[in-house]
């Protein structure tokens, strides 16, 4: 007859289905109850937020949107937070992609969603062609990025977009790009990415235009390299970065909110205002998913701890 499993063995042999069930539970439950988790924004996210607020009035922001729904948990939150801040600042922006053919449509859908929010809040909608441009997917990332650095108007010149009620026209005729003769005329280039396009952009555009990145959690280690060296102005990394950014949108940096409190303080940043808008429009993906990340990471830590305790007990022969 088989000996009954020891306590140590039981600790090390939790069935897969139980682990999976726990994971589904701890990641799903928080989605129904959005919580405002206490948080201390990271310096890289604060620098990112400040970089956007420092863009001079009237400058255009170029967004390299290289993400699709496979990383929507992080990337969609990053992209929508970025679009919200740009719209709040009344800055014009153009979105292009070199990472994935699906990316332009995904980005258009997010801009439409943020516009719906603004309409519901009684704010001005961003008009296509007048306020923002949807540029196409460019199949070759290295060539296109290098070309943008070399002659942005020639690279983007063949692309067309349309204002409502108008036939598609060259994007060079849009007010968004009218003052952009060379890449140096851009206020900022933001790469929202889940792929290697971040490296390509630093290699080809660093020194020509200020850069800032929004990357997925797994890309944070490699991208931190560029932030640490000062090659990018700011970095929003993973879901934590998105949550940081949404908190900054609410509380600003070194800024006294409507209640007279300064919620986020930083010695390295100046005063950057937050938004004083209806809170329901600030529940972005970061706020929505951050408690679920807490659940998942806590479970991961517990699983590792339990597995290791089981191993140590097993070595000692304890029952």
């Amino acid at each position, binding site marked *: 007859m088989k000996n009954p499993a020891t306590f140590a063995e039981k600790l090390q042999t939790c069935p897969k289905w139980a682990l999976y069930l726990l*994971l589904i539970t701890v990641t799903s439950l928080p989605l129904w109850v959005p919580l405002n988790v206490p*948080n*201390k924004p990271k310096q890289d996210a604060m620098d990112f937020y400040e970089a956007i607020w420092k863009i001079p009035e009237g400058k255009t922001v170029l967004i390299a949107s290289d993400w699709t729904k496979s990383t929507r948990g992080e990337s969609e939150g990053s992209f929508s937070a970025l679009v919200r801040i740009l719209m709040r600042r009344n800055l014009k922006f153009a979105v292009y992609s070199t990472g994935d053919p699906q990316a332009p449509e995904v980005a258009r859908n997010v801009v439409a969603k943020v516009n719906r929010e603004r309409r519901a809040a009684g704010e001005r909608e961003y008009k296509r062609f007048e306020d923002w441009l949807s540029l196409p997917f460019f199949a070759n990332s290295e060539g296109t990025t290098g070309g943008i650095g*070399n*002659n942005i108007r020639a690279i983007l010149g063949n692309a067309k977009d349309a204002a409502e009620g108008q036939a598609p026209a060259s994007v060079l*005729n849009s007010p968004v790009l009218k003052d952009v003769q060379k890449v140096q005329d851009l206020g900022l280039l933001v790469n929202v990415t889940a792929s290697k396009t971040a490296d390509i952009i630093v290699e080809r555009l660093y020194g020509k235009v200020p850069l800032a990145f929004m990357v997925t959690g797994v890309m944070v280690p490699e991208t931190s390299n560029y932030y640490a060296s000062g090659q990018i102005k700011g970095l929003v990394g993973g879901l934590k970065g998105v949550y940081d950014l949404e908190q900054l949108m609410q509380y600003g940096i070194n800024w006294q909110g409507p209640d007279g409190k300064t919620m986020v303080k930083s010695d390295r940043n100046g005063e950057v205002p937050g938004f004083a808008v209806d809170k329901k429009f600030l529940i972005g993906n970061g706020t929505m998913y951050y408690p679920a990340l807490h659940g998942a*990471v*806590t479970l991961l830590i517990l699983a590792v701890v*339990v597995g290791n305790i089981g191993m140590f007990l097993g070595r000692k022969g304890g029952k």
Partner: protein
Amino acid sequence: MIPFAQIRTDFWTDLPGSSSANLKIIVGLLVGIGVIFALLRMSTQFRRPLIVGSTFIAGLYYILLWLWPKPIDRDPGEVATNPVEGLGFWLEDANPAVSQVRNIIAAFLIGLGVYSLLRIHVGKIAKQQKDWGFSLVLLVSMFGMAGVGFADWASRQGPEGAKLDNQANWGAINYVQDFLFDGLLQQMDAAMFSLIAFYILSAAYRAFRARSVEATILLGTAMILMLSLLGGISYLSDQAIEKMGGTDPNAFINNFRLTELAGWIQNSVQVASIRGLQFGIGIGLLALALRLWLSLEKMGNA
């Protein structure tokens, strides 16, 4: 400054639709077809020098673009005053055209992929080989998605196209496209990616053990970084340590705040390691690029 909506025109940048641009497209197309036929009929012995030569010239362009002195604050219509400047101007002017050529070549790869899929799966269906039903699903999905995608794109090309950003103005084809793209493809994409979480949890539970000194260091570091991701934990632990440090913001104990520890690991250990790694990769890529550029790689007889 170049006036609004005007782009510099030269040999490389004809205005789209102009007769000279059309002429160059036709000539380029004919030359391309000619080269392909010539390559097909040529013996392997003569094909190799041609490919080696064109690879070298293509690589040389980018090497020169990188290393040759670049024009600074060049005015439109400015004439080069010496050969060095002239080559710099030429390289700069050619860059958008060369980039577009690269884009077109990359787009051809999609066509090549479609051709390859068709060749394999049409054959499988015709011969009714094992699992030919999956091949049928693949082809129907591919052509269905492409067809609906083109129809949706076409519906957005007229003056009313931008109105379709608002769902209230959608027609049937836009709803079908939305169902296929957002409703199916994107959701399946996200679902596939989310499965990783289950594998990570299972693998961490079974394999992430402190079996040696190195593994223990790795485990400890990972724990600190994972805990720092938990805003609630890092916020509360930082508050507790700051209280222990009293009113002095420079108290030594403040170095042990969770966010400080995680920041030190990321900025001092992780960044340095990744830089070393990337430096090594960079040198390896440089060597590989040189071998490809000079056709030193042995890749068959072609």
